[in-house]
């Protein structure tokens, strides 16, 4: 298995991790470990939020760019690693 897939598997089996989603640049999920409806919801919403966040960062300084986004809520934490072609989303419940 490639290193990428191994790492994904490890993250998935990490303590508290609920799921991992990879979304392409248009907001369509490519790879997911959750069920379809949840994936679709997360993909769409997080995609928008990430775009907005990136736009904010770059508006302030166009040479800057968004590298990581963490959203902590009461129940769990959503971590987003954005890139030009895709978004990597991991949902974790850290307080277990």
């Amino acid at each position, binding site marked *: 298995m490639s290193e990428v897939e191994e790492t994904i598997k490890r993250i998935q089996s990490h303590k508290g991790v609920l799921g991992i989603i990879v979304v392409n640049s248009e907001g369509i999920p490519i790879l997911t470990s959750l069920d379809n409806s949840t994936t679709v919801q997360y993909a769409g919403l997080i*995609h928008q939020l990430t*775009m907005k966040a990136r736009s904010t960062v770059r508006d302030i300084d166009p040479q800057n760019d968004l590298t990581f986004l963490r959203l902590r809520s009461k129940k769990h934490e959503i971590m987003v690693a954005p890139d030009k072609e895709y978004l990597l989303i991991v949902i974790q419940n850290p307080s277990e």
Partner: protein
Amino acid sequence: MSKVVKSGTKGNVFSSKAMKKSSIMNTKSQSRFTSRRSDISVSHTHSRRSVTLSESKLTDGKSAGGQRLGLIVLDEDGNDVTPKPLHSYDPTVQKSGFFGSDNQSTVGTPTDVMSFTSVYQSFAQPFSRSIYGSTSNRSAKSKRSSIESSGEITESGPEVTTGFADVMTVRREEVEDLTDEDLNKMVDVILEETDTIWMFEQKGIAVSEESEESQTIQTKNTAYEELCKTKEGNDRFAERGMQTFNFAQKHKEIQAEKVGLTDAAINVTSWDMYDTYASKEEPPASDSNEGIIEKRGRSLGGGGERRGSRDGSVGTSRITESRASVLTMSVMGEPEPEPSPQPTTTETNETGINPQWEKISSSESILKHLVVMERVVTENIYQPKQATYRGMSVLIDPDKEIEDAENAPGGGSPDIMTAIGPTIDRLWSYSSPMTKGRNVSSMTWNKVNPDILAVGYGQFGFNEQNKNKGSLTCCWNLKNPEFPERVFHSKASVTALDFSSVYPNLLAVGLYDGTVCIYNVRNTTDQPVVDSFDCTGKHSSPVWQLCWIERERGLGEDRSEILISISADGRVVQWSIRKGFECSDLMKLKRTSSKNPQKKKEKAEALISRQAPGMCFDFHAKDSNMYLAGTEEGLIHKCSCSYNEQFLDTYTGHTGPLYKVRWSPYCPDVFLSCSSDWSIRLWKQTELKPVLNFFSTTKAVHDICWSPYSSTVFCAVNEGAVEIWDLKTNTLDPLITNLASPGMKFSCAIFSLNSNSVLVGDSDGQVSVYQLRNMSDKNEDKVGVVFVLSWVEAPMHIVELVWSYGLYCNDSDLSMVAAFMPTVKLLKLLHCVGKQT
């Protein structure tokens, strides 16, 4: 008034009304004819009557209507003012079926008349005709000449009217002829240039000054102008009004197709403009179309809800190429991303999305992102422990339920903690499924990044070597305690490790079979950079210790480093990687005969090897020429790199193989050694006998390590426990003892460089991180600690008390102080603590 002479039969064209009108018409002007046309079209039900009437009327007519076939209009003077017909009859047109219809009654039944004239009316001939006229025409058709003379109208009428039913048949026949025969014929089509057809010609009104007419035209122009000037008062001009006819207007409505409208909006952000300028500077040829779309996909997303933003910024025809932009242009203001109404996951739409995933997964960036993500995920779990490791404050999760105060790491009331006394607190352990069950044989920190730890997993004993399929070297990172960052496999057990300081990415690994390899930890490949397999001077026995030593060589090289190894074949070997992997002997550890006078009588034993197996060594921190080497015999030799035959000194005291010897980082003269004879001994460089002995256990002591923070603290690991010793407080017992769980043996220990912790490896493949708590000497206080050494020898020997100061800065102070130290012979142990600023 012109008289209307109706020739022939008008037939049903005249109703009674029409007759009246016609009578009127007789007296009225010619222009009425046009109105009659509309009357004609009225009814033909009264055909019979009209026919007769017309006939009677006709017979009343003066002219030779009976014989005259057409309608003849005569004016008052009797001139023939019959309007010329609009349509001229072409006698050359054949009417084959004409005579066929002629077979019908010449008079024609009223029905025939009706049909004919109805057809006739439909053609709106200028003059109406009676049936009789038509029939008589038909009869007269036999004489073409008479037909021609009577006027074109008559001919054209029947031709058209009567022939309608007939013409239809004619035409049909003609069509049939074509289908049968003519289609298969080769038809020559000749294209010729037609004559020029003038559709419109307008001559210019301007004439060149040089032409002949110009003179005349100019005179005319001037005459005209004068005329215009004199126009006003001139008698020759009279004003007269005219009225144009305003014809009746008619409204006509048409409907065109609705013009489709599209809204387009653009939202330009400052970074969009920046991107555009940046991309314009790059060579455009390097980007493929797809790349452009991808890039716009990114800036697209940045536009937020208004997806059309990139169109404004890019502003090229590339917009139309993108599939996504087409979608976005048609949908405005929708909060949902429109391409995702039917998103599918990989399971359901494999053909479309899997290639995308493969493309992404093969890109480099995803791996980096995954690594970062893994670390972040890990941090969420380990954050409290990592924070205490670093000495930072622990972030308290506000939503987490507050547990018992004692359980919270780093929390708890300080009173309780201090009351407990110094303890070690296990934070976490580096372990992974692949390292489970392996014995940790050596550990070393990276010289540049103190978070990276290299751990070698290998068995110590010969019998255990075969059990493992291979051995591992793992590089662990503090940020991910669950999976090593690098894994290197080797066949033989790993017994020694060291990171280089000049090239911090080089890791030297010594193996049980005597091989020395060097790995580059920047790569993830499993192959060593160099391997001593081919070297002539390689070791033939396990390499028990490795060390990179910086040497200051002349010849202008500033930082050169050599690798030194010691192995059980009794040699201390120096390796260099300048040209390949070369080695040269630094020292051969010879067996020294026992100095015990009691054994003088024994014969010299037959020795397997003349050399003593070397187990450990340590170079002096200040003097890189001098080092200590411990052998399996229990002797510690002080050696120098300059002499490779002789030892400078030999320290005796241990009765078993030395496992570790270590110089103190604070006191340049003091070193510590541990061996399998259950003891740890403290030595001073000038004394050949140990200064202090520590007996705390009945198990072999595998490893010792000085604390980098305190000059009197060291950690000792034996098979059953981890012991933290503090010489300041107690020289007989360790300060902290942490027993091993049953079935597990500790095998090596190392202090952490950037934290108040000690890492201990065990035989189960785990490297546990223990944090030291409540050590009596606070670590923030890095001032030099004074400690006192005193040693007590066996009963009747003189005890000397030596004062020495341990400073972690320069040692010139130390020598100055030592010079003034009194040497007092005492029997008691004394120690005092002082601080020096």
